[in-house]
């Protein structure tokens, strides 16, 4: 069964004709060419494929596009605005929070949702918000540092 859908991704409307059993992860990567969204298990066990749906972090490997008509979807490719990096992207690059970089898109988006909701999170709140994103490279230390730095910069624009 295929469905014709209109998906709003990173502010752009995309009309796609896809089998209904293709997950959002597969449609983003394979039909829209947005390979910034990665995958580590496809079973909801690692957070690597996180995207934002209406601002909330969800697992694209377990979401069906057919349920998302009318929703606003944001992927890592949509974080920068007009060529200007999101403060989180800037901080992750500056502080070495992306090592292999594979979990980075999912973590950036999860952190973006956190900061939208809670502009000055404590370190423990950042840990809890990112508890659904596995990273094997960093020991999370530089990731927590980078989210703190971004929060600071968003609070006090330079």
């Amino acid at each position: 069964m295929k469905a014709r859908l209109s998906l709003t991704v990173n502010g752009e409307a995309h009309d796609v004709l896809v089998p209904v059993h293709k997950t959002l992860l597969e449609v983003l990567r394979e039909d829209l060419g947005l390979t910034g969204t990665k995958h580590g298990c496809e079973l909801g066990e690692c957070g690597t494929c996180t995207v934002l749906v209406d601002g909330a972090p969800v697992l694209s490997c377990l979401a069906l596009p057919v349920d998302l008509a009318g929703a606003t979807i944001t992927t890592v490719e949509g974080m920068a605005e007009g060529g200007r990096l999101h403060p989180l992207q800037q901080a992750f690059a500056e502080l070495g929070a992306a090592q292999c970089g594979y979990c980075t898109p999912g973590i950036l988006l999860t952190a973006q949702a956190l900061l939208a909701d809670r502009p000055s999170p404590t370190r423990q709140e950042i840990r809890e918000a990112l508890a659904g994103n596995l990273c094997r490279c960093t020991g999370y230390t530089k990731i927590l540092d980078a989210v703190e730095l971004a929060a600071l910069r968003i609070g006090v624009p330079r």
Partner: protein
Amino acid sequence: MMRLPPFTYLAPRTVADAAQALASHGAAAMLVAGGTDLYPNMKRRQFEPTVLVGLLAIRELRGVRGGAREGITLGSCTTLSAVAAHAEIAAHYPALAAAAGLVSSPQLRNMGTIGGNVCVDTRCNYYNQTYEWRKAVGFCTKKDGAICLVAPGSPRCWAVSSSDTAPVLWSLGARVRLHSPTGERTIPVEALFRDDGIEYLAKRPDEILTEILLPPADGWRSAYLKLRRRGSFDFPVLGVAVAVRMEGDVVRDARIVVGAVASQPRPAPAAAAALVGGRLTPELIARVSGLAAGPAKPLDNTDFTHPYRKKMTRVFVARALASLAGLAPAGWPAEEVA
């Protein structure tokens, strides 16, 4: 990449349409809301429905109504995040907010629903594996096979009830509303479960869980403690829900329900009865927690050893009660105390 098998997807707008769709497709159809339980299972070919009836487009199934004074009604498709963050629930039914907030990961809680968590498939580490893995070890009775690999001599399936919220709702005296083409009924949540790893739900296949009804808070205090390896992702391998109603410092009523140690949540009525009329002293708590551990019958099919899970039942019941008694010393994992 793990992918879903093909299926037809129906997205009804009303409960009545959903019930009709479910009934008309019979055994080929399954309900899905957040998909966080069903889709991984389908990717591993534990379920192979050809029709899915999606509930996310049904507006009436979402949201929380009412208050602690008159009781609260939760739409079954309310996300776990929404339940965990709901101020009234957090204040008056803290165990439920805690349990919802301890399910898997933040992302999954944004997708998974309270109804889905109550009805979550039973789990077993011989069962929640890919088709190829299950083929290698030999298929089990829950899917594609004839024997239980946990207890090969047993005629039944011992997959484990792995809901965080079900034991809490049970301890809170919640009821659930079921809708089918032939009508509606409301039953106590405990009547929803059966002690069988395969047929773990007592609801009829054509029934849709539409609402969860919490009774008035009425002086009840509640707590939920969860045992698992990590603070995120992991299903409970032991969940302890306690609820007590106090008059002064005397317990007037109590319920203790233990999750993830059997194919359904296990109540501990003898332990609860032993609390009534007493004060929550360390001595009483120690005695009651021993009684509460009795019904826990974990087997070797989850993370941790089953003797450890059994042993921890006593500890977790004691700690949950101690937290309600205000005895909790510092140093507890704060996230696990409601």
